[in-house]
């Protein structure tokens, strides 16, 4: 096995071994999925057709925004990255492997949700499986890269909670998961347009489920793709080995560059 494989296997196993990660990667999303399946399908008839992408996005956010960043900060604080540097572990591996491992956990839980939502809760089934998979992969990379970027720029665990919740909570409320974005008042709709879930839901609805969308779903694919690439590149660029050694530290405010595709979307795609 190569060093990369060893590293990946360790990181993936940690996602199952560590109780808080197991909770965020699997137990919380699955529990929430079952609860929503039992409650919402009866209360809100518009929920079932988009249940699969909604629940997958909740799982993605729990995994990538709430679970992924903390080990990054802890490793930096505990000198683990310094030890990695001395032993030749490259930045590319340190940034890529948690993103990949998060991606695999997301795919696994997405398979569970996709396979069971229809038979258990009458969830809508994609009409175009190709686009469904493409958007799943794209969204998973987008959220995992965002999670890594949060971990890289957060000086401590409190900052992670703050930054993660700045995306997580508005996404749950305004990002098209619980209420279709088309039903939001104009001001909140603009806020929704700077949230990645809005674009994931738009892309899935338009391209994988054959539903009507507020704007061309292909723009959503482009915005998700740009955002994944920018977040990943920023995570590598802003990565620091050591919380004590600031001499090569780059300005974490550069991470705000990640907002560019979403702001462009909010400006040009709102009719």
């Amino acid at each position, binding site marked *: *096995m*190569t*060093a990369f*494989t*060893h*590293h990946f296997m*360790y990181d993936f196993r*940690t996602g199952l*071994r*560590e109780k808080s990660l197991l909770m965020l990667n699997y137990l919380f999303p699955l529990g929430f999925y079952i609860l929503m399946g039992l409650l919402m399908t009866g209360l809100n008839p518009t929920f079932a057709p988009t249940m699969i992408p909604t629940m997958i996005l909740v799982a993605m956010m729990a995994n990538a925004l709430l679970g992924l960043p903390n*080990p990054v900060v802890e*490793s930096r604080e*505990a*000198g*683990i990255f*310094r*030890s990695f*540097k*001395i*032993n*030749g*572990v490259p930045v590319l591996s340190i940034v890529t492997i948690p993103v990949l491992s998060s991606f695999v956990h997301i795919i696994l839980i997405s398979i569970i949700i996709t396979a069971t939502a229809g038979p258990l809760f009458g969830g809508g089934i994609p009409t175009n499986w190709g686009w469904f998979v493409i958007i799943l992969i794209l969204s998973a990379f987008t959220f995992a890269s965002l999670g890594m970027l949060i971990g890289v720029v957060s000086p401590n665990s409190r900052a992670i909670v703050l930054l993660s919740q700045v995306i997580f909570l508005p996404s749950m409320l305004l990002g098209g998961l619980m209420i279709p974005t088309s039903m939001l008042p104009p001001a909140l709709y603009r806020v929704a347009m700077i949230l990645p879930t809005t674009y994931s839901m738009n892309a899935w609805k338009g391209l994988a489920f054959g539903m009507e969308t507020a704007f061309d779903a292909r723009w959503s694919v482009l915005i998700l793709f740009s955002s994944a690439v920018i977040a990943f590149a920023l995570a590598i660029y802003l990565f620091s*080995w*050591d919380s004590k*050694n600031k*001499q090569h530290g780059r300005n974490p405010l550069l991470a705000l560059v990640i907002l560019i595709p979403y702001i462009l979307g909010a400006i040009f795609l709102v009719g």
Partner: protein
Amino acid sequence: MQDEVILVKEFRKVYGDSPAVDGISFEVQRGEIFGLLGPNGAGKTTTLESLEGLRQPTSGSLSILGIDPTRQSNRLQNLIGVQLQSSGLPGYMTSKEAMEFFCAYHKVTTRPDLLIRLGLGEKLNSQFSTLSTGLQRRLSLALAVAHEPPVVLLDEPTAGLDVGSRVELHQVMRELQAKGTTIILATHDMAEAEKMADRVAILLNGKIVALGTPTQLTATGSGLVKISVSSDTACLVNSAELFPEVEKQLLKDDYMIYYSRDAGATVPALLDYLKAQDDRLVDLRVERPSLEDRFLEITQPDHSNRG
């Protein structure tokens, strides 16, 4: 055998306005165990971390086997083994995984034999966070030497270890030295430095204030021999002025302790005095100055003067 493996020239590292290391120079020969001693904040860890390529010198130069750790740290990775002061390992990583992980990055075959040799044979599948401090240190040492680097940098390797673990780690260091490995040992433990190091540098406020073999360093101190005497009565109290070679006297744990310039003259005089006072000698110990005594003389002159 006298080739220089590590060269430090006028190395200076400044944080903000204050220098952590202030223009130190030393060299370490192949196969040598070189001790870096000093109180907290003296600059030991900064020096080690700069040699490891983790910090950039403000001025001066550092090299290991002719490689600049700051500019060519990639070339250094297989040539040095490092045991950091902090754990440096993820808590959920098992001993076996850690060995596989680091060996894979160093592109060498995994070394379970080292784990067994260092007493981790039954803890191969134990996660790092569940290991005792001693076992964590042993694992860190195993990982530092698994790729058989010619240079090993150890930062407080035996801190918090029990006697058995310390002896075991010292034995491993001796074995490495016998194979020609060059070792820098940063430690607070004077006895360890005196026992293990061929030469030591004492750092104080970022400067080297003493450099040499432990024997040379102790010889260049005040040279006072410590004579501890215990007797049945209190006749030795305030007796220092009776013995011309004695510079200091203090009472500690029923022992009257004299610091003498000439033990050969003081000991017979003491015995004669006890006999004259009809006192009975219970215990008598004569100790040459240790590295710790010399260290205290240098780093805490006030403490040393108080005896």
